[in-house]
């Protein structure tokens, strides 16, 4: 089972903080990998926050294929960071030859596009690159979006951090928002794409537990949007649903909860908005999750949220002070990085609420 965590901070933080959040929880997971999505970047990527940043792991040939593709499609590279790994002996990591994080300038004609067309261009480009590398087995593309960096690898999280020199706190990578977890998704095949957090058009999502309606979700989502691909992990369905409800249908965020864990019919019948809730339950029945899950999400506007399944079989806790808000599967991680917070203000979300952390670190609890 996964433990998941996220940090939203007023000051940029480095990945070691996220690791310190996750490692005390290691009894609860199998330490088989590390994955994180950083948003609102500082450090080396603070110059080109408005330019799409490609995050990938690949072979040398894969890197060349991507460079050729981007050249052909008129994306011009602006800046890049290729980590020089600390190849100590006996590190538990299944490393890829290259990790490339590169800012691109948009093609000229994209300047005239409206934002939705530009968003689709970025998505389509990522999907094409993914296809290219997947077919040839030359690498993995995790995200291609402004101000978003994704790092995933298989191995022991502490060793992975050593390999990428994340313990050094050298200031290269820092961000005001990090979502992380320390496990490869091993329910199915070990595939790098299966490790959450997942990213799609500004939405980041991490989830633990088993999505018992995975088959239903997947079969429905495949026809909803061309960006809903892969499905290497059942948790990807949570991201697709968040994207669909909030971005495609453009419904306010509280309705995400109504879609994934609808109220029982008897409770709906008592509500003033029963028409809307019933219609949602009817039309989006195949996006219900009905499993033991916790979800952590980050929206394009930077808000961070968490909610649970309706049976509340997966725990999560939110702790915060004036400078930092943290969502974590277990409180021990929270105690490690925020020992001085007022723990009486910690929130243990119930099965019928969504906890939202806005960009001013105001923590709101929304009742479903």
């Amino acid at each position, binding site marked *: 089972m996964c433990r998941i965590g996220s940090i939203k901070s007023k000051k940029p933080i480095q990945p070691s903080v996220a690791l310190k959040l996750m490692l005390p929880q290691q009894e609860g997971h199998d330490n088989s990998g590390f994955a994180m999505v950083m948003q609102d970047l500082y450090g080396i990527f603070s110059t080109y926050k408005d330019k799409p940043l490609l995050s990938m792991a690949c072979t040398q040939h894969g890197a060349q294929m991507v460079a050729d593709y981007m050249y052909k499609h008129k994306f011009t590279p602006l800046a890049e960071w290729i980590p020089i790994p600390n190849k100590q002996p006996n590190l538990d990591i299944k490393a890829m030859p290259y990790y490339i994080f590169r800012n691109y300038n948009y093609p000229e004609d994209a300047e005239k596009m409206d934002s939705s067309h530009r968003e689709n261009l970025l998505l389509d480009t990522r999907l094409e690159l993914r296809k290219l590398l997947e077919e040839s087995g030359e690498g993995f593309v995790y995200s291609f979006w402004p101000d978003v960096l994704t790092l995933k690898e298989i191995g022991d999280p502490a060793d992975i951090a050593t390999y990428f020199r994340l313990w050094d706190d050298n200031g290269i990578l820092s961000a005001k928002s990090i979502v992380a977890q320390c496990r490869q998704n091993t329910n199915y095949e070990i595939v790098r794409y299966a490790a959450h957090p997942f990213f799609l058009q500004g939405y980041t999502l991490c989830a633990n537990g*088993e999505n018992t*309606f995975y088959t*239903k979700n997947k079969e429905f989502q495949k026809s909803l949007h061309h960006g809903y691909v892969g499905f290497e992990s059942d948790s990807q369905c949570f991201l697709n649903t968040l994207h669909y409800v909030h971005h495609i*249908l453009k419904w306010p965020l509280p309705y995400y909860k109504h879609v994934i864990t609808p109220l*029982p*019919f008897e409770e709906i019948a008592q509500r003033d908005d029963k028409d*809307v809730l019933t*219609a949602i339950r009817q*039309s989006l029945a195949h996006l219900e999750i009905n499993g*033991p899950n916790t979800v952590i999400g980050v929206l394009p506007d930077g808000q961070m949220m968490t909610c649970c399944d309706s049976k509340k079989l997966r725990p999560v806790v939110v702790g915060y002070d004036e400078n930092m808000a943290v969502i974590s599967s277990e409180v021990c991680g929270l105690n490690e990085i925020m020992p001085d917070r007022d723990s009486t203000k910690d929130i243990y979300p119930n099965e019928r609420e969504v906890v939202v952390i806005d960009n001013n670190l105001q923590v709101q609890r929304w009742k479903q």
Partner: protein
Amino acid sequence: MQQIRTQEVGVNDLPWKIEYHADRCTMCGSCVASCSFKAIKVEMAAQSITVSEDSQPNPIHRHIARPIIKQVASLKNFCRGCGMCEKICPNNAIKPIRNPDSRKTLLSRDNGPIKRGGRTNLNAQRTLDNIIVGRISQMTDPSLDSVRHTFDIRSPFGRVLSPKELPFEIVDGKLIQKNKTPPVRWIYPLVFSDMSIGALSTRAWEAVALAVGYLNEKCNIPIRMSSGEGGMPVKLLQSDFLKYFIIQIASGHFGWNRIIKAMPFMKTDPAGILIKIGQGAKPGDGGLLQSEKVAEHIQAIRGVPKATLSSPPNHQGLYSIEESVQKMHLSMNAAFGFRVPVAIKCAASSTSVSVYNNLLRDPYKICGGFFIDGIQGGTGAANEISLDHTGHPVVSKIRDCYLAAVKSGSQGQIPLYGGGGIGMTGNAAADAFKMICLGANGVFCGKILIQLLGCVGNEQGRCNACNTGNCPTGICTQNPRLVKRLDIDKGAQKIVDYVLAFDSELRKLMAPIGNSSLPVGRSDALVSTDYNIADKLGIQYVC
């Protein structure tokens, strides 16, 4: 000496033979009185016997004449094996025995095709019994507790819109529905299937209706019952309980005079309308109510004279699915002000997927459910050739239709209900659960209800005499003497108890797969030990 006449029918030509023990018989006559088929009679038998009546052996040879029970050797009044004689005999002196040497099927066509009721006797194979709920939550996702957790067991009945079609607008961060959407009722996933007043005795129909009322009013189980094509009592049409009933219209339109006349006086809308196009037990054969059963009250409800009532095999004037949608769906929708879901029931067929696809494409969004009826469904009367040799299994058809909807991203928009053989082995909850995992929103059943009332018919040729008007259990007859055999309250209680157990059993299957709401289309929960079934249905093969 009597001469043998080869063409004469003997009891050994019949499907059942009466085993009678004259020595145990008290000559009470109950068996003869109870046999609604007049398949046994009292006869005087000349017997040559040796008796000894003294305290010491003193054998005396006597020729006596004494009454005995004798089976009638007739192709009309033949024994159906119902066993009423055995049930009533105080001394176990009589019972029917299946005759493997029966020539009845061969000899019975003097007056045209053989007619009977019941289910198919040749196609009783059970796909569902080769499927197991094999995906049990063990570690990562704890199972639920079927007793402690709450479950949301409801299914849609009505046309569901795709998410993008929902008429929502956002006001102050909240979604507001600005236009009407098609009516959808959330009902129990088990629908009591259409058995008409006429096919059933009024008492049997009333017993089922009583169970429906009790389950809704007292047990919080929103079960719905289809009226069948025979109209409904006017009092019921004008009562609050109408909301529990789905009124059926079939090709004979029987009963609709009364229904239409009652409409201005209806206190509430019916649960739905079900347009019956075909029936799984006898697709293409049309309805059949033989004149024997068209009693005076049936004539009144249906508005017909005493005659054999044959519904046409199809709705006259409908030549295409599009036309069906335009004419029937629209008119039925309009009749109830577009407040009542209108669904359609078809016999399962190789063409079911095409029909479903066409219904899904209907621009008016007015088809509120697709009921697919398989070959193992029952009927009150049909030509035996139709019962045994036409039709289509329902399990793969439900799956095919569901997957067709998946392909177009429209799963759930027209709810799928599967029937025909649900509960054939007595375990309707297991059947329902597996059908739901394969893509059905719910199931419908009829035969099992009358079996709970006391019907003894089966797929091995027992009874199956629903068409004769001589139903020995008082269920499928209008004969006032026979209908009294059925205790309405006890019958209703039996159905209520069964549904309550069904509900618990459904939870017992939902809990281990970790679901608190119905796992519609959750095919990953199922496995099959039969490779071909697994392959066809797209579920895991296990061995």
